[in-house]
């Protein structure tokens, strides 16, 4: 674990504080008159998401957070846990619903995702920007009904419901942007 000093502090840096990983989401260097430098940080807990402000000064030392991202393949869901397999060493891990979070809307078997590990413990998951998912249910669009807008709801294989154009039909496969949770296009 690398030891950092106050002059290393900047936005995006990840630190370990009281055994938990934090990321600096806001940072301001200030230095009044002939006084000592102050490093004002807004820190976000990378597990709980809670934020707080703290001011550090030159001379303060920190540990960098022991974080690592590895590729995992989604295997299956059992009760409230999600099982993944490391694509390089085939080790399997289990993630809770809380850790998986909104990613659950886009998880299908065999999807390869990045999992963020803090001291070897999984704390977060990042999806590919785009995934393809099948439509399991969507009512036919009503032509000419422009007053109701030009989209209709469609239920995807994960159970997630999105708005799609009227021409989308059941059993079609769609490309979805996981960052916004929106329809991109049909996939043949």
């Amino acid at each position: 674990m690398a030891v950092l000093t106050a002059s290393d502090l900047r936005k995006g840096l990840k630190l370990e504080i009281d055994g938990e990983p934090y990321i600096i989401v806001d940072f301001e260097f200030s230095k009044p008159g002939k006084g000592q430098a102050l490093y004002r940080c807004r820190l976000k807990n990378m597990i709980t998401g809670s934020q707080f402000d703290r001011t550090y000064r030159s001379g303060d030392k920190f540990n960098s957070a022991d974080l690592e991202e590895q590729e995992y393949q989604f295997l299956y869901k059992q009760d409230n846990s999600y099982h993944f397999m490391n694509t390089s060493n085939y080790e399997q891990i289990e993630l809770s619903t809380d850790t998986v979070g909104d990613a659950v809307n886009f998880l299908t078997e065999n999807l390869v995702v990045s999992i963020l590990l803090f001291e070897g413990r999984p704390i977060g998951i990042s999806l590919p920007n785009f995934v393809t998912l099948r439509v399991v249910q969507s009512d036919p669009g009503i032509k000419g009904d422009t007053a109701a807008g030009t989209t209709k709801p469609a239920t995807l294989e994960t159970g997630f419901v999105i708005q799609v154009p009227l021409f989308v039909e059941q059993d079609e496969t769609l490309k979805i942007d996981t960052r916004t949770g929106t329809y991109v296009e049909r996939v043949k």
Partner: protein
Amino acid sequence: MRASVLQSIRGFFQEKGFLEVQTPTRTLAPAPESHIEPIPLLEGGCLITSPELHMKRLLAAGYEKIFQICTVFRRGERGHRHHPEFTLLEWYRLHSDQAALQEDCEGLLQFVCRAVHRESGWKYGGNWLDVNAPWEKWTVQEAFLRYAGHDPLTQWNQDTFEEVLVQKVEPNLGFPAPCFLTHYPAFQAALAKMSAHDSSTCERFELYWAAIELANGFSELTDAMEQRRRFESVLKEREKADLPLYAMPEKFLKSLEVLKPCAGIALGVDRLVMLLADAPSLDDVVAFPPAFT
């Protein structure tokens, strides 16, 4: 905007009978400072963090009113309000004290604002600024009592002074007109003279506008012995903290022996341009912002 500000600064000082000077950018013996890090040079010495020592040597040689606009270098300073190299305006008056400098500040900023058509006010970051509104003057003690609820002189705490200043006091200073923060605690004197009637404060002041520190001025300490003691104590502090040590500025100390009472001030030109241009960051007012290292 930058060009007009620079031209008008020169115009103001010429009108006031100041001589523009140039002093070295490299030095072997910078003023020992606890919290300012020079950028060292391969051949020894460092880049100046301020032209102060050289300019005071010119005063000691008899120049009465001098000013300089130059680039200075401070290692590791990088933020919205800090660049590791920036443009500093310094001016000095022989046979004078900080009151004259404060008058200069008012005259200068009014002059510059007229030159860039800001004399009837403008908005900086949503706040109304007006150089012609009444300028406030607060002592550090008054400002702390009002905004932080304690007296920094009787309840002195080196560790929290700057933090409280930055977080509680500074955000309130300099609306709509600039404001002086005066009577700094003696511990924060650096190269300033002690107050004549009060040993707990010194004749140092800062100029704030829109919560931004623009300038730091003082009635200069001209007691060579006292200045040497202060330098020695800073050098000891630096040695303890394992910071780079530079030579004692002997030539400067020698010049203090003949230096008459005088006063000097340093003003951050980039910050002034930033305010006048309603720019949120220094990066917006320099052509080539430095990298975050």
